C-alpha cells in the first residue's frame, strides 16, 4: 500500500473521529431548546463540558491534515465552499464560547443557550453541505477552483446537510441516554427514536441520490465484480439501524450510542467506496493532490508516535468523567 493511500485513511480517520465526537456535542446543541431550562440543559451541557474541546480538535486535525497531506485538495475545496466554511467557523465560535458564557451571565443565559443551539445547527448544516458539495463535484481549472461562489447550493447539498443535522441529533441524544438518568434521559430517548428514523431515511436518500448523481459512483456499487465486495455495506447498515432502534425502545443504556457510531462508520465507509480514488471529484485523485513523499514520511513518523498517546490520554479524560451526570455532578 503506498503512502498516499495510508494518508487518505489517516485523514478519513480524523474526519470520522471528528464527526462522531463533535457530532454528539453538536447534536446536543441542536437539541438544546427541547430540554427544559435549568436542570435539563445544565446536565446536558455538563455531560460534554470537559471533553468538547478535545473533540473539536479533530476538526483541526482533519483540516490541518488535509492541508499537509493533500494541499491541492485543501486549496480547491475551501474556496469552492467558501460561504459554508465561513458559516461553519462562525457557528463554532458561538457554540464554543456559549460553554463558558452561559455560566458567567445569569441574566443572559437564554441568549447564550440560543447561541449554543444556533451555532451548533449552523455548523452541522454547513458541514453536511460541504460534504455534499464535494460529492456532487467541484469545477477545477489548472490548480484552482473555477466555479462560482454559490455552486454549492443545490437540492442535493441541502439533503446532505439535513442528513448531517439528523445524524448529529441522533449521536447527541444517544449520548445523553447514556450519560443522564431520570426525566432528562426519558426525554433523550424520545428524541433519539425520532432522530434515528430521520437519520436512516436521509442516509438512504443520500445513498440513492449518489448512485443517480454520476455514472462512475454508480459503477462502484452496481457493476460486477464490485457489487460482491460492497453489497455487505448496505446490508450491515440495515441490520445496525434495526438493532439501534430496538436498543432505544428496550431502554438500553450505552448500546444505542455505540450502534449510532457504527451507523456513522458504515455511512463513511459507504462514502469512501463512492468517492475513491478521488479526493475532489470529478477530476482530482488522491495521487494528484498528494504532498511529496518527504512530507508524507515526516508526518507519518509524527502520527505514529503521537496518535497512540493522543488516544490514550483522550480515553483517560473520558474515563475520569465516566458515569452518569447526576444531581451532584458525575457519580
Amino acid at each position, binding site marked *: 500500500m503506498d503512502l498516499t493511500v495510508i494518508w487518505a485513511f489517516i485523514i478519513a480517520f480524523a474526519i470520522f473521529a471528528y464527526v462522531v465526537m463533535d457530532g454528539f456535542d453538536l447534536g446536543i446543541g441542536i437539541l438544546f431548546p427541547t430540554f*427544559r431550562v*435549568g*436542570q*435539563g440543559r*445544565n*446536565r446536558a451541557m455538563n455531560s460534554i*463540558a*470537559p471533553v468538547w*474541546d*478535545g473533540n473539536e480538535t479533530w476538526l*483541526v*486535525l482533519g*483540516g*490541518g491534515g488535509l*492541508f*499537509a*497531506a493533500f*494541499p*491541492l485538495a*485543501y*486549496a480547491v475545496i*475551501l*474556496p469552492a465552499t467558501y*460561504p459554508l466554511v*465561513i458559516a461553519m*467557523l462562525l457557528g463554532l*465560535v*458561538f457554540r*464554543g*464560547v456559549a460553554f463558558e*458564557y452561559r*455560566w*458567567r451571565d*445569569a441574566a443572559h*443565559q437564554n441568549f447564550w443557550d440560543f447561541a449554543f443551539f444556533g451555532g451548533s445547527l449552523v455548523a452541522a448544516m454547513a458541514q453536511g453541505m460541504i460534504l455534499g458539495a464535494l460529492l456532487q463535484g467541484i469545477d477545477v481549472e489548472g*490548480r*484552482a477552483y473555477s466555479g462560482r*461562489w454559490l455552486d454549492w447550493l443545490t437540492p442535493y447539498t441541502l439533503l446532505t446537510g439535513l442528513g448531517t443535522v439528523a445524524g448529529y441529533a441522533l449521536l447527541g441524544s444517544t449520548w445523553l441516554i447514556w450519560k443522564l*438518568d*431520570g*426525566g432528562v434521559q*426519558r426525554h433523550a430517548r424520545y428524541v433519539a427514536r425520532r432522530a434515528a428514523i430521520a437519520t436512516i431515511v436521509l442516509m438512504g436518500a443520500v445513498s440513492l441520490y449518489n448512485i443517480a448523481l454520476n455514472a462512475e459512483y454508480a459503477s462502484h456499487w452496481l457493476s460486477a465484480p464490485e457489487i460482491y465486495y460492497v453489497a455487505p455495506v448496505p446490508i450491515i447498515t440495515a441490520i445496525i439501524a434495526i438493532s439501534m432502534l430496538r436498543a432505544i425502545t428496550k431502554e438500553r443504556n450505552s448500546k444505542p450510542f455505540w450502534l449510532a457510531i457504527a451507523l456513522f462508520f458504515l455511512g463513511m465507509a459507504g462514502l469512501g467506496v463512492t468517492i475513491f480514488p478521488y479526493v475532489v471529484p470529478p477530476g482530482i485523485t488522491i495521487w494528484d493532490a498528494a*504532498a*511529496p513523499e518527504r*512530507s508524507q514520511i*515526516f*508526518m507519518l513518523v*509524527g502520527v505514529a508516535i*503521537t*496518535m497512540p498517546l*493522543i488516544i490514550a*490520554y*483522550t480515553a483517560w*479524560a473520558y474515563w*475520569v*468523567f465516566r458515569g452518569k*451526570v447526576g444531581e*451532584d*455532578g*458525575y457519580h
Partner: protein
Amino acid sequence: MFDNLDALLLARIQFAFTVSFHFFFPAFSIGLASYLAVLEGLWLKTGKSVYLDLFKYWLKIFAIAFAMGVVSGIVMSYQFGTNWSVFSDLAGPVIGPLMAYEVLTAFFLEAGFLGVMLFGMEKVGKKLHFAATLMVALGTFVSAFWILSVNSWMQTPTGFEMGANGQFLPGPSWWDIVFNPSFPYRLVHTVMAAYLTTAFVVGAVGAWHLLKDKANPHARTMFSMAMWMAAIVTPMQIFAGDMHGLNTLEHQPAKVMAMEGHFDSHPEGAPLILFGIPDSEAKTVRYKIEIPKLSSLILKHDLNAPLAGLDTIPDDREPPVGVVFWSFRIMIAIGFAMLGIGLWSLWGRVRGRLYDMPWLHRAALLMGPSGFAAVLAGWITTEVGRQPFVIYGVLRTADAASPLAAPAVAASLLAFVLVYFTVFGIGVWYVLKLMGKAPHAGEYGVKRGDVGPIRTAGITPGPTQNPGGKDTLPAAKPEKELV
C-alpha cells in the same frame, strides 16, 4: 483586474483582522497557563492556601480566555485555504506538516487535559491534577513553537526546493526548515512577550485590588509575583529583541530599513531617528528628531559603520514604511515603559514599601493592557515589514490569494468584524468582571451551577424530587458562594 485587487485587499484585511484578534488570546493564555502551573506547584510545595486561592481565581479567567483562543484559532486553521488557496497549494508540502505537528503535539495536549484541569481536581487528586495543568501549559508552549516555526519559515525560508509544478517542496533536511534562521530569535522574543503580557495583566489586577485594600494578602502575592516578572523578564526581553533585530538586519534588511526610517544609505554612520513622519512618496522622513550615528552603533556596534537604505531596494520590493516605522516605535516605547515599572517596583521592594505605593499601583494598572498593545505592534512590524511577500523573497502576497470574488470576501469580512467584536467584546467584559472581584480566601474554581462535572467536597445540593422533570431548583448562580 481592479476587481481582483479589491478582493486581494479585502482578503488581507480579513486575515490581518482575524489573526490580530486571535493573537491576543494565546498571548495571554501562554503566560497564564504557566502562571497557573507555578501557582499550583507553589501550593503543592508550601501548602499555603493563598496559592490555591489565586490558582482558582485565575483559572476562571483562563477558562474564558482559552475558549476564545480556541474558537478564533480554528478560524485561522481554515483561513489559509479559504482565502489564500494559492499559497496553501504551493507551500502546503513544506509548512503543512509543521502545522500538522502543532495539532498532534500541542492542540490535543492542551484540549485533552483542559477538562481535567478545569473540572477534575476532586476526581483525580492533587498530583494528577497538577500534571494535567503542566500538560496544558506545555501544550501552549509547544503550539507557539510550531506556529512560530511556520511563520519564521515564511520570513526566512530555507531548506526547500522548487517543484516542477511550482510547489515549494521540502529538501532533504526538515531540520533546515523547522530551525530556519529567524526562528530561534522569534520564538524567544514572542514567548517572553506572552509572559510579559500576562505579568502586566496580573500586576494590574493585583494593583487594582491593592488600591482598594492594601492589606489584601492575595492581591499582594499576585502583585509581587507580577513585579518580579516585570523587573527580571523585561531587560531580558529588550536584549532578545535587540538580537532579533540584528537577525532581521542580516536576513530581511529592507524590514529594518523601514523600521529605522532609513530611506537613504548612510556610508559613514547612520543616525537613529527617534521620531518623524515618513513620507514614502518623497522618500524622506519629515520633521525628524535624530541622534547621529546611533543606529550604526546599535545595529553594527560601530559608530561609523555604513548602513544601506531603501534606496538600494527596488521599489516593488519595499515594505510600506509608515506602518512599520510607527508600530516599531510603539513597541519599543511600551518595552521601556515596562522596564520603568519593573525598576520602580524594585526600588519599592528595597524600601520595603511595595504594597504601599499608590502611584506605582496606578501606573501598573494603567500598564495592564500594555502587553497586548506591544505584542500587536511587534506583530504588525514583522508582518508588514516582510511585504510585499508572503514567503519572503519568493512568493508575493498578491500572487497567493484565492480566486474569490470581492463581494464574497467583503461579506465574510463584515461577518467576522461583527461577530468578533460582539462575541469577544462580551467575553472580555466577563473577564473584566471576574478581575473586578477581589481575590479572597476560599476562592471558587470553575463552578457550573448546581450540577456539573465539578463537585466541591462537602457541597452537595439536595436531590430534587423529580429529577430532570419540571425543575424545582433554580439554577444556582455560578458564583454563588457557599463557603
